[in-house]
């Protein structure tokens, strides 16, 4: 069964994840809407010169900016937490097909800790990568720096997918930093797999960027199409995970010195 069919077969999962994303994003939208409405009270903006009006609004009501930042960043943080929790369950479902809920639940319970641990290791590795990149990219032309940063993010995402899959499906030790680091090595050593994952990731980003661009360009009117694009992006994400799951176990990392000594 190819990846698309697997994703379509798991349509309830897809819809559930999508609705979850919409709910998280709606939290940001509602908070901002309420804050702006409270700031304006009975007043309303003019019909034109809207950019000036928005600048004046945030100038006199900086709490609106705070609401936007907290809403948007808070949503992203919430999404990271929720997805870190759900990832083992989704990977298990995509790899094993439809299974009884109890069986899936047991697999989830068994691998959740490891998946969270390896995600945490990846977070640290990403922080290190970002720290290294910030210094080295700053002298480069902005677009080149952006392209390199995007490439690094794609590699990091592929590595995380590989590590999580290793933990959930192949008994990888999530608490070991080497499982996380080996995800990077494995991603780089399998360029074809990396290319597919990168392509899928870029398509997801394209869906996200297109949705955001539609909404910004239409001053909020095109939120419906943006939501549909989010569904498409989520489906691509599930396809990506299925592809990793089907790529098989990665070779075990080389033994550590401590292991040698034993």
């Amino acid at each position, binding site marked *: 069964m190819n990846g698309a069919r697997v994703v379509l077969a798991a349509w309830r999962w897809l819809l559930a994840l999508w609705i979850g994303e919409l709910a998280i994003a709606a939290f940001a939208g509602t908070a*901002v809407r309420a804050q702006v409405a409270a700031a304006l009270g009975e*007043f309303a903006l003019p019909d034109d010169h809207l950019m000036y009006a928005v600048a004046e609004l945030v100038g006199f009501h900086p709490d609106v900016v705070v609401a936007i930042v907290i809403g948007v960043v808070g949503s992203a943080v919430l999404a990271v937490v929720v997805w870190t929790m759900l990832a083992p369950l989704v990977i298990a479902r995509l790899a094993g097909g439809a299974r009884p809920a109890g069986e899936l639940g047991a697999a989830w319970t068994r691998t959740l800790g490891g998946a969270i641990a390896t995600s945490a290791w990846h977070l640290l590795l990403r922080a290190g990568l970002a720290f290294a990149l910030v210094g080295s990219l700053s002298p480069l032309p902005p677009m080149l720096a952006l392209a390199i940063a995007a490439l690094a993010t794609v590699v990091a995402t592929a590595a995380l997918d590989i590590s999580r899959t290793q933990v959930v499906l192949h008994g990888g030790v999530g608490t070991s930093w080497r499982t996380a680091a080996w995800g990077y090595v494995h991603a780089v050593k399998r360029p074809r797999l990396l290319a597919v994952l990168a392509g899928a990731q870029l398509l997801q980003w394209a869906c996200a960027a297109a949705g955001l661009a539609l909404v910004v360009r239409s001053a909020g009117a095109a939120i419906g199409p943006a939501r549909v694009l989010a569904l498409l992006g989520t489906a691509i994400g599930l396809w990506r995970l299925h592809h990793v799951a089907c790529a098989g176990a990665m070779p075990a990392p080389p033994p550590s010195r401590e292991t040698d000594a034993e």
Partner: protein
Amino acid sequence: VRTQVARSHPKVVALLFVRTRASLILAAALACDRAVPPAGAAVPEPEAALREPSKLGSIPAAAKVLDWDIHARLDADKHRIDGRARMRWRNTSATTVARMPMHLYMNSFRAEDTPWMIEGRGRHRGNAQGDPTAWGYVDVQRVARRVGLAQGSEGELAPLRFAEGEDPSLMEIELDQPVAPGESIELELEFVTQLPEVFARTGYAGEFHMVGQWYPKPGVLHADGSWHTHPFVFHSEFYADFGDYAVELDVPASMVVGATGIRTEEVVEGDRKRITYHAEMVHDFAWAADPRFVEYTTSHDGVKIRQLMLPEHAWSYRAHEDAQIAALDSMQARFGPYPWSTITIVHPPTGAEGAMGMEYPTLFTTSPVSSIAPPLRLLGYQERVSGVFTTVHEFGHQYFQGLLASDEFAQPWLDEGMNTTSNALVLEDRDGRDAWVMRLGELTFHGSDFVRLSQHGIDTLQPIDVSAAEFSPTVGGYGGIVYRKTAALMLTLRNLAGAAAFDRALHSYAEQHRFGHPTGADLEASLREVIGERVPLSTADPDDPASGVVELDVGDVLEQGLRTTRVVDFRVHAIVNRAAVGDAGWHRNEAGVLVGGDAPEPREGNEGPREAVVVLHRSGDFVIPVEIEVVFDDDSVIRRVWSGRKRVHTLVFPDRKVARVRLDPDAKLVLESRRLDNHRVAHDVADHDDGISGPLGRTSEAAALALTLGVGP
């Protein structure tokens, strides 16, 4: 071998082909984007510095005061100029003159304790002095008067005493013989000018040399016999008399040079060349040189437009050319013909940002057009002002200072502020009335919005009509007040009094004072005379005939706007829809007997007679009429004009229900920066839409959705 590979590894060959083709396409695309565009055939240098008489307008007899012959030799390695100037000055005042104060502007960059540097601390418009030892100065070595001039005789030189002032940007020459009214004097000066590393208009950056305010210049003698010479302080610009220039520049042969006036001769001798320039009826001479300059020329309406830029900026030459042409067309139509035959646009290179955005007669420096990053373009960000607005602005100075040569020290608003006003009008002529200059999707930012931004915080500390010395870079506010608040005042006046009358007034001012030194009083007189002292804005309010006709008092608006710090601010204070008062209770009848005594009729909801009350508040001190738009619940609309004289104005509408009220609905009061409280919706209107919480909420939701998708599965 290739054939073998092709046969055995067809996919590899295909991949190589695709890669090669993609690389070629990419390279071609990059090359197309940044290649130096062809310059086309060079437009020949005009034969005369001034245009034909029909484009020249009248030159007042008293306007031509000062003629120059200058020889300057540039040492490009030391960034030093050895200069020799012969200056013929005519006393056009009614007083005999025995001394001549001079400006030595370059000396302001001589040490860290000059008045200019004390204020600027080595920074100007965000550009910092680079090499702390790269000082600039002008060292006058000899001043002499030429005596015994006769037909065919050069006469002799009589040395004159001279001394720098306490502020080294000033110098005074003692004339050995007083100069009577109408008489002339011919002086010779020898000087050495050391250019600073450029951070404030003039100087060098590597091979680039921007040579402005580089020679000693006398002050301006007014008709009453008073010299107007100003120390060069941080916000001060320049003031000088009109005259003709013949300038010979001796520069390295590799240099491409742009200068005030027309090029009349160019002679190469070994590794040097001598270029001669001629300019007429200008009050300054500036030049730029760089061996890397490429040149683009065109001609429009008989004016040669010449651009000098480095190859990396050449891709944007057309945008600047279009802006220059738009500005030329607009300003000629509004302020009379441009009198000179050339205009040179210098694009300082990267590293010489301090030289960007400065005006000199028939030459100005501009700034680069920004390229919009693809992510911003994706979000729908567009702008049509970066770089080209600098071109519009600096060309505008050819009128507001180049032709209407006001005292920039005493009344800087007359050139910077009036020029900013004219820039807004150029944009209107180019793009339509109040067209957007920047947009993000549906959110638009207009030329008038830039101007409107002048009324916040520090920009209200000073009135407009004060000298440059009253402003301090430590406090700030110069740009907001002098540039933008002036424009806000003028555009407000234009919107209220009517564009046609205002434009006629500015045209009259420009025509009347060409090649002159107009003052603020001259401009105010033109505005009041042509627009009229009082402009009726409305007939009497039919509901309140006693209120009389609402009029705009032009003089009062100018007085408040130019010489006070009052702020324009209005607010819709309240909208009340309520039951009207009935006639229950006791009243006397015609016979004087109390009758009635009924109880008020019980009313529920909106039953019974009703009325609407609108309360308006003038929150700012600036008294100016404002238009009111009232929208009723049946979507009918009325407009009124309120004189704004009282602090509070109340409108009562019997038997009506008001849905919303807008103050200044057409955004005519560009002086009003705080407009969030200008549009109020009645609290009992069911579909209250503030116009922004929804769009901002949905945009935030989309941003959150994008991030969620980015970090999710």
